[in-house]
């Protein structure tokens, strides 16, 4: 079946001249950096092995539904910051000690939340230089090392990417871990990429990850994401790789069929060879055709991949539409340094609640690469009505002279406006509070919004793989619950949807098993919980004091 994409793509194919961009008429969120006032003192440091990584896991570890932060530290210890903010208030965090050895707390590159044992507490997978850690969550943000119990030896690799999904009716998740350079191989680092691992849960009664399958070939992976690229309901594994070190490598997509090892899509199957300094993956269905687009951060151009007209349901052929849509973000948008940019964490989210997804890209020189921009501010590209994006990083207040790596776009103070965490190399982590649109008298609220929590009793409790469709008038928006992507950074929590001027919305959920729910009718500016099998949605109200 030939995919009918041309019509849908017309909305994306809008020329956007980056250099001559007009001021956007829409609200630009004012992001105010307040990490130190909020109690977040943390930097990501370390030698060459920590030029990459620097992730943050954003999730609720104490049941109050406010997102807490687990920050990778590289040579510094990883730290957990428990969110003590109140609704709409200044950001406030308290560092809480982790009951891990000093050895395990250091050499951490990234972290992803995942509830791998389906209990009441979110777990965390910690990516390290050396043994990775599966931390089983407990009450009040306590964690216990679970590697042994899960039959997972943690490996000895330089791990830089992670993704998780629940296959078919599986009780437990299938995991993928991406590794970077094999430092022990002859000739390292050039052409010596370590293989990634694909971990299916073994057994049904007891969770074990003791039968890893090696993803060979691997090409120095820096981000991976399970994705339903062809609306088949079957996850595939999208992998972005760093051409800096691989030889003969490329971007990858692995087919993941139930009960079979993953198989890489080949050029004869329509996969086009693409070589980039792949750092991070963000997914969103920008043109609402049901087929996701992917933003890939890199050195120089950011890619925005959409299915090519030559694609079909078994033929994943993509083409780049970043230039047409104004998201190449290939060099700093401010300052005098015109050298190419270096992009890391990337994430789609609606930061101004206008119903259109925006794109955040963390930027920063690898260390002291002379051919790339030294002052390389993070990007905030606001989505426009015609599918194009406009850079607003400077106006928003995020154009700091830092070296960004991992990040999270997440509502930290439950006010319905997405805030921003950026883990920086050497300097303190940036924590930006979204205060709304600036005016000459202060800040005004932006568009309406919804925050949605999906629950499934007993299995896959966070509904990973579920697709949400939100309808307001003629506008449909979709979101997919995913664990993976970004740059060494993952998050679990409320799904944020901007509603613009809509006062109410109808929500339908396609649960991971493919079943569609009925309409849930909700009012704007609420936190909503939808539990599979329950007729009515519940509202959640964040603490005020």
């Amino acid at each position, binding site marked *: 079946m030939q995919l009918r994409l041309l019509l849908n793509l017309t909305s994306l194919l809008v020329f956007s001249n980056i250099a001559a961009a007009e001021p956007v008429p829409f609200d630009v969120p004012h992001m105010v950096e307040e990490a130190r006032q909020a109690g977040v003192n943390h930097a990501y440091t370390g030698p060459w092995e920590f030029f990459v990584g620097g992730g943050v896991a954003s999730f609720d570890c104490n049941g109050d539904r406010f997102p807490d932060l687990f920050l990778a530290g590289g040579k510094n210890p990883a730290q957990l910051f428990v969110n003590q903010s109140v609704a709409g208030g200044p950001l406030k965090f308290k560092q809480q000690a982790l009951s891990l050895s000093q050895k395990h707390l250091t050499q951490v590159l990234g972290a992803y939340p995942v509830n791998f044992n389906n209990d009441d507490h979110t777990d965390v997978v910690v990516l390290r230089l050396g043994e990775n850690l599966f931390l089983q969550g407990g009450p009040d943000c306590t964690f216990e090392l679970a590697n042994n119990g899960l039959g997972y030896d943690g490996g000895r690799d330089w791990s830089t990417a992670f993704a998780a999904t629940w296959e078919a009716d599986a009780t437990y998740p299938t995991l993928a871990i991406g590794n970077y350079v094999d430092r022990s191989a002859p000739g390292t680092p050039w052409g010596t990429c370590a293989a990634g691992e694909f971990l299916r849960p073994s057994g049904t009664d007891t969770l074990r990850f003791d039968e890893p399958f090696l993803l060979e070939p691997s090409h120095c992976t820096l981000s991976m994401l399970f994705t339903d690229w062809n609306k088949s309901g079957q996850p595939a594994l999208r992998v972005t790789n760093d051409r800096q070190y691989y030889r003969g490598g490329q971007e990858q997509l692995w087919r993941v069929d139930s009960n079979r090892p993953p198989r890489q899509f080949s050029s004869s199957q329509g996969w086009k060879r693409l070589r980039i300094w792949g750092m991070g993956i963000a997914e969103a269905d920008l043109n609402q055709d049901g087929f996701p687009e992917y933003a890939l951060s890199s050195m120089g151009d950011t890619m925005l991949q959409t299915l090519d007209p030559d694609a079909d349901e078994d033929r994943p052929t993509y083409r780049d539409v970043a230039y047409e849509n104004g998201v190449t973000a290939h060099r700093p948008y401010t300052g005098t340094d015109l050298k190419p940019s270096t992009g890391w964490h990337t994430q789609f989210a609606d930061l101004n609640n206008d119903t259109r997804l925006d794109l955040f890209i963390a930027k920063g020189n690898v260390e002291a690469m002379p051919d790339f921009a030294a002052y390389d501010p993070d990007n905030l590209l606001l989505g426009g009505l015609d599918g194009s994006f406009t850079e607003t990083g400077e106006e928003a207040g995020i154009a700091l002279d830092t070296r960004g790596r991992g990040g999270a776009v997440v509502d930290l103070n439950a006010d319905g406006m997405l805030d921003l965490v950026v883990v920086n190399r050497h300097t303190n982590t940036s924590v930006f509070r979204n205060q709304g649109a600036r005016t000459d008298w202060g800040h005004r609220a932006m568009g309406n919004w919804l925050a949605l929590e999906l629950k499934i009793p007993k299995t896959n409790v966070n509904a990973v793989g579920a697709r949400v469709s939100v309808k307001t008038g003629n506008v449909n928006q979709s979101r997919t619950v995913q664990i993976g992507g970004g740059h060494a950074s993952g998050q679990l929590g409320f799904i944020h949807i901007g509603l613009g001027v809509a*006062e109410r919305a109808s929500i339908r959920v396609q649960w991971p098993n493919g079943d569609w729910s009925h309409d849930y009718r909700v*009012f704007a500016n*609420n936190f909503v919980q939808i539990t599979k099998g329950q007729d009515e949605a519940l509202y959640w109200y964040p603490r005020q004091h």
Partner: protein
Amino acid sequence: MKTVFSLMASAVTATFMSAALAESMLPWEDDGVLLGGTTAAPAGELSKEALDQLIEEGETLFVAKFNKREGAGRPGATQAIIPTKQRHLNDQQFARLAGPDAQACSSCHNDPVIGGAGDFVTNVFVSEGFANANFDTSDPQFSNERGTNHLLGAGLIELLAREMSAELVKIRNDALHKAATEGVAVKAPLVTKGVSFGSITALPDGLVDLRKIDGIDTDLVVRPFSQKGVMTSLRQFTVNAMNHHHGMQATERFGTRWTGEGDFDADGVINELSADNISALVAWQATLRVPLEKVPENAEWHAAATLGKEAFKSQGCADCHRTELPLTSLKFNDPGPFDVAGTLNSQQVEAPAVYDLALLEWTQQLPRNENGHVLVPLFGDLKRHTMTDRVNTLLGNELLSQRFVGRDVFMTSELWGIASTAPYGHRNDFTALDEIILAHGGDARTSRDAYAAATREDQIAIIAFLKTLVIE
């Protein structure tokens, strides 16, 4: 920071600009009022003089017959509340179903006074407006047909609704606090001003079970306007209606901030209605005097009405048609606190305008209770009720739900002014009070049956009482 005085001055200037332009126009010029020229809405508490000027401007806009040069018509946009483009440009200036269907607000709201109700001929057709149906048909599968309500006393209605919403939100917050503190689920009755909206159950983790709420939306905002009770404020209704009925689009919803276009409806006119214009319209509506309970000069009528008022209560009519609700404050803030983006609200401005309705002569005539609260004689409860049942489906003619509210559920009609606003019912298709009373079903079944079973004298007495609720 702008001072309140300077912001007030801008409103006054706008009014004078309108007057100045009108004076400079030749009598036969086919222009109307000055529109869209100012962008600053009034702010702070207005003096009586400033309020009077704003009201005057609002009345000018309410009776204005908007023409194409001013932006009337919306060839490129539908009547939808959320800005929605037509699939194909519609060059018809007027259309009965999808609108625009009137040249002025007062084209329909005119019986017996400007701002009043309208006869059957002024019925409007309510559809969500997302389907781009340009064909004209009143087939109920495409829209719900509704009568034109009067607007008198609308300011007090909105103030009552705001106070009720605030109290319900407080009940919810208190229940959440208690649940969190004590670690148990807390069931909280939602009762405000004596009206019950069911109950909620707050859970210790901040979740709220809303399954037992009654006659109100899940966000616990009392939406007092429209036959359905789905509109929050005069401001929201005004922005909706100006687009629907006239194709006059307010920048606060249809402007570049939300749509990226100054001329969203593609009629060649940009920024058709400024925030200031909408404020003026709101000010005029919010300050309309209330209808009266008139003491009949005819002694026989007076006696019957006195008996009828008691029967009205004893037969349960007043359970929903509450004879009065207490109002704490006469300060009307615009924009208000419960609107959301798309309608200007108090979070979107430096300071809302404050209209002190106590400055108006008619409010000084309103009775007060022992607490000094104004007793608003609305004969309503600002709550939605099911109006049909298995036996009586006369008010169940609609086929489409509206804004999440079921097809046979309607807001209790406020009966003040009912003697002056026939015909009756949400579709204006009942010609006499006796007919509409007997058409009640559902939640009103018991009181309707009591009326039906009453003696003819008692029935006449109730009608005699209702005939004292007049607009003068």
